[in-house]
């Protein structure tokens, strides 16, 4: 009789355990998840505070380094103004330092959540980061180079007395920018073949258009130009016909 009771108790305990176990497991999971969320929130909070401190310190450092004056001289300020950004470069960089810190802490915090899918996405994202950095650098350098070359072309063509100097300069800028964007997109692996093909077609098209425009549309001008060039090479002394004085 005693044995029968014991078995009954065991079964009841077993049943209770089986009922409670999922609850316990659920409770543990919730507790674990809450701990993760708490870690996530804590890391984010630390990131925000550290970001704020870093912004303050880097702003002081950049101002001490007179980075605004250098950016003014290096035409970075003018470039930013053209893009509608009126904030000084020191402030921009300080803000970038802050948000970069927050971003890094956010990534660390996401890892603390221990969600497998998120972890996989993070891994992929980290592998992609170098491409993004290289692309940003390409775009930045390309933009700077396009500005520099456009201005150099503008000055040279103005000094040569060419009326369409502005247009020539814009074409130079557009050419460099188009090349830059295609390089950056290629680096990111976006539409690799399409971009190369598109760039080739556009570039080839421009050259063909110019050749046709010059050869057909401005046939007389082309003829005169070539004739004058040939005549000049045959009679070098005629070069000084317009201005015969020496500047030095």
């Amino acid at each position: 009789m005693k044995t029968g009771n014991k078995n009954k108790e065991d079964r009841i305990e077993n049943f209770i355990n089986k009922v409670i176990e999922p609850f316990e497991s659920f409770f543990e999971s919730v507790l674990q998840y809450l701990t993760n969320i708490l870690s996530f929130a804590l890391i984010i909070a630390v990131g925000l505070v550290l970001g704020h401190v870093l912004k303050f310190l880097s702003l002081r450092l950049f101002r001490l380094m007179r980075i605004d004056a250098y950016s003014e001289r290096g035409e970075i300020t003018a470039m930013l103004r053209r893009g509608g950004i009126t904030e000084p470069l020191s402030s921009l960089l300080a803000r970038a330092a802050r948000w970069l810190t927050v971003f890094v802490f956010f990534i660390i915090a996401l890892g603390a959540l221990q969600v497998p899918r998120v972890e996989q996405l993070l891994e992929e994202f980290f592998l992609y980061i170098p491409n993004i950095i290289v692309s940003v650098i390409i775009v930045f350098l390309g933009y700077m180079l396009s500005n520099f070359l456009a201005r150099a072309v503008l000055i040279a063509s103005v000094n040569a007395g060419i009326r369409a100097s502005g247009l020539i300069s814009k074409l130079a800028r557009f050419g460099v920018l188009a090349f830059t964007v295609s390089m950056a997109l290629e680096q990111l692996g976006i539409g690799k073949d399409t971009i190369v093909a598109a760039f080739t077609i556009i570039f080839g098209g421009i050259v063909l258009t110019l050749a046709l425009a010059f050869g057909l549309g401005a046939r007389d001008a082309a003829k005169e130009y070539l004739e004058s060039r040939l005549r000049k090479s045959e009679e070098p002394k005629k070069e000084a016909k317009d201005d015969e004085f020496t500047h030095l």
Partner: protein
Amino acid sequence: MVRAAQAGMAKYFPDMRSVVVNSDGGSTDGTVEAFEEAMVEDFNSLFIPHRVSPLLKIYTPYHGIPGKGSAFRTIFEIAKELGVKACAVVDSDLRSITPEWIDLLLSPVLKEGYDFTAPYYLRHKFDGTITNSIVYPLTRALYGKRIRQPIGGDFGFTGELAKFYLEDESVWDSDIARFGIDIWMTTTAIANNFKVCQSFLGAKIHAPKEPSSDLSDMLRQVVGVLFDLMGKHEEKWVDIEGSEPTAMFGFRYDVGLEPIHVNIERMIETFIIGREELGSIWEAALPESLIWFLHSLKPSPWQDFRLSSEIWAEIIYYFAIAYHRTLVNKTHLLKSLTPLYLARTASFINEALQCNATEVEKILEETCLRFEEKKAYLIENWE
């Protein structure tokens, strides 16, 4: 040129030993052969009866950046190695050089105790516009010495000064190695208190200019060196007020100069294109009032086009300040000066069209005085 140098040495310095150096950038046009063969054959026809020692000639290709400055550096080095008392440098394409030039460039150094002889030429009133509108007025206003042709290119100087020129090694990688050498030599001599004088050489006639010589590049090199030297010798020019004449040697006479053709309309057109397109660069250097004034200038009729010497002096000083503070890329800033320079040149030609040489010198004197008057503004805004 070699024969003129040989005859000049034989006639005016018979007791001294001399060397003629051709510092060449690798000519393939027969310069080397011409240099080797050149020799005075009949000294009696030049009234040189005494025995003449044979001429020692050195032909050497120079190294470094291609340009006149690198060629001069080689000459300074040879002068230093030989321990010469005096040295004269002349352009190899001169058509108007005579044996007297050697006397006029070297005698102030060898007989009068000067360290540096600058040339004084008679030139067509429209010739040497960079000299007349920028280099002479600015050098005079800054350093207080009236040297009419600071970038004449033909100089006499002591062996000691040649050694001094070699002391700063860094300059030979800059525009000084090109067109900037002349203004660098003159300014270095003045700013370092060497005794400076001028010699009247008569007319200066060159071989026809090379078509490839680019005005914008020439202007950039000369003005760039001038502005760089302003920064280097700042403490030497800030306290100088006004200017004083410089000793002049040689007999002054008039020469007939052939009329030359100028295209004023093209100069004004380049200025107008520059005004439309280069606003962003000019605005970084010039104040709003000047920009507004430049926009108010009417291009036609071209005979009435004027850009006064007062405004011109202001423009040059504003550009010097912008260059010193690096407000814009320096090369772009200097190259953007070309349309403004052409506007001033067009204005000057209009002013001087009916003037004789004396009247033209008066116009230039006025320009120099405006530069001297405005110098206070330059000092005030330099830093």
